[in-house]
């Protein structure tokens, strides 16, 4: 629709573009600042010289970060949590969503109501914490993997998607003698790749970023995920631990540089894949927005 714009509209469009560009700068700049700081000399950062480009380019901070055992072991743990956790999430969410999407399942609405209710009311932190201890999951990988294994919201999204698959397709497979497991595995899942992709991403990103359950359920540092190590370095400023034997001043300076390098090391995997996955995320939010 090409129409003539009034002077007022031209001014508005111009201001709008400027305003949104300023916003985009504000969204990007903090990340850019961290990136250039991670390659800068710590003295230059501390004296405020770093703004847009690295000053006295150096990769010393990265050397220290990659030399640190805690970073490597927690990276490994995070991989375990992301892969195993996401797998558990997907299996349970799918196996819950598919039966509840079938029209003729007796008792379906009651079970559905029980699931939806958990979105609005829960036992809360303390009973959940005691539950994990009581089940003997405390200080094991399972304490991270099992609580929160199904998101009621994602289950509803998936169920809505399954409901859009033509009933006749499933009926005909049934007549051919396939049982429900086979129908789900061989017919429904291949048709549901978009929603599976979205769920995988949502679950995997939340595992990658999660830290609170690790903080309350884990004591053994060998089980810590990356985010918990980041917390020690970024929030509790324990980067000094990486630098035993250095002078006080050097320790302080280097710990500043290490902070930026660890942020980059911990964030790059997601930011690198992000542009490729972006359209799925948007699709996911939209599927979630469909009202039944």
């Amino acid at each position, binding site marked *: 629709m090409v129409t003539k714009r009034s002077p007022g509209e031209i001014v508005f469009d111009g201001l709008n573009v400027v305003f949104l560009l300023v916003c985009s700068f504000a969204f990007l700049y903090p990340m850019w600042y961290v990136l250039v700081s991670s390659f800068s000399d710590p003295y230059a950062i501390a004296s405020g010289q770093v703004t847009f480009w690295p000053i006295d380019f150096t990769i010393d901070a990265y050397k220290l970060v990659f030399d640190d055992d805690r970073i490597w072991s927690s990276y490994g743990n995070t991989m375990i949590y992301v892969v195993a956790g996401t797998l558990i999430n997907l299996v349970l969410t799918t*196996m*819950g969503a*598919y039966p509840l999407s079938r029209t003729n399942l007796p008792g379906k609405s009651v079970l559905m109501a029980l699931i939806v209710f958990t979105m609005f009311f829960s036992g*809360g932190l*303390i009973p*959940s914490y*005691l539950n994990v201890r009581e089940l003997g999951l405390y200080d094991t990988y399972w304490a991270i993997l099992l609580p929160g294994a199904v998101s009621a919201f994602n289950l509803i999204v998936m169920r809505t998607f399954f409901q859009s698959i033509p009933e006749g397709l499933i009926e005909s497979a049934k007549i051919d003698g396939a049982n429900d497991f086979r129908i789900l595995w061989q017919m429904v899942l291949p048709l549901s790749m978009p929603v599976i992709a979205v769920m995988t991403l949502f679950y995997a990103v939340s595992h990658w970023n999660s830290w609170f359950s690790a903080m309350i359920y884990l004591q053994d540092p060998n089980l810590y995920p990356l985010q918990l190590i980041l917390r020690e370095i970024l*929030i509790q400023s324990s980067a000094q631990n990486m630098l035993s034997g250095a002078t006080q001043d050097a320790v302080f300076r280097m710990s500043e540089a290490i902070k930026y390098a660890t942020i980059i090391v911990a964030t790059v995997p997601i930011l690198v894949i*992000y542009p490729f996955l972006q359209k799925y995320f948007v699709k996911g939010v939209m599927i979630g927005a469909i009202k039944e």
Partner: protein
Amino acid sequence: MAMTAKTLASRPKEPTTSKKLARTWRRIAANRYLYLMLLPTMLYFLIFEYKPMYGLIIAFKDFNPYAGFWGSPWVGFEHFEKFFESYYFWRLLRNTFLISFYSLIIIFPASIVFALLLNELRSRKMKSVLQTISYLPHFISLIVICGMIIDFTKSDGIINSLLVGLGLISEPIQFLILPEWFRTLYVGSGLWQSVGWNSIIYLAALSGINPNLYEAAVVDGANRWKQLIHITLPGILPTVLILLILNIGNLLSVGWDKIILLYNPGTYETADVISTFVYRRGVMEADYSFSAAVGLFNSIINFTLLVVANAISRRTTKNSLW
């Protein structure tokens, strides 16, 4: 068996119900694989969602791990009374409410406005690039975001350097040490984190509006502002209301995550909220019953707010969650 047959024969209504029952049983049997499939997921909800709800009973007991769940004595509403009378009660309620309320009145409309402005861009290409940039912060982990906040707001951090450099302030401000800055930092960083992501859903709603409406409006001589008022805003209203209800239902559930990472005893005065208090008293000090009671109080208020907001919206606009 003979007795049953006789009774059935004498009461003509009975066979139909038993037939119905038999039919239901047949349907359940026919779907046995579906139930089997559903079992692990339902077990999850039972063990990790409903069992903790049942575990809330300890809020009415004096829970002692050695005496166990059932061995611990009942104390009725004692923990609730203790909480309501404590010095912390009003402070926690005020902080929880204010932090949520400021987030709601700033981030919620900002996300809508951001979506509307993006939608007004004439270049498709630019729109999609700016959109992509805007939800980048959503993927950065909270720990990293808080690490950045801590670093940027230090007295020699980039924010203070900028403000001093521009002559806006003469002395660096200790943002994270001064209680009066906590809410500003919390909401301001929240704005950065979530505006882009929140706007996705409005952009989806905007793209669902029938373009013919705009063409008709242009023919009728409506300018862009008139189109906004009469077509665009009514078009996204249902989406806005649903999200508003959900937000109101969460008014008292400010998460512990960001606050735990950013606060310190010096800023408890403005930063300590119900969930952080529950975490400190419960997990760190092992005062289980008392903090379970505080958590339950919080959940009940949230649930009530949600139900009320939903009812109001259903009555006034016919939009509701259920």
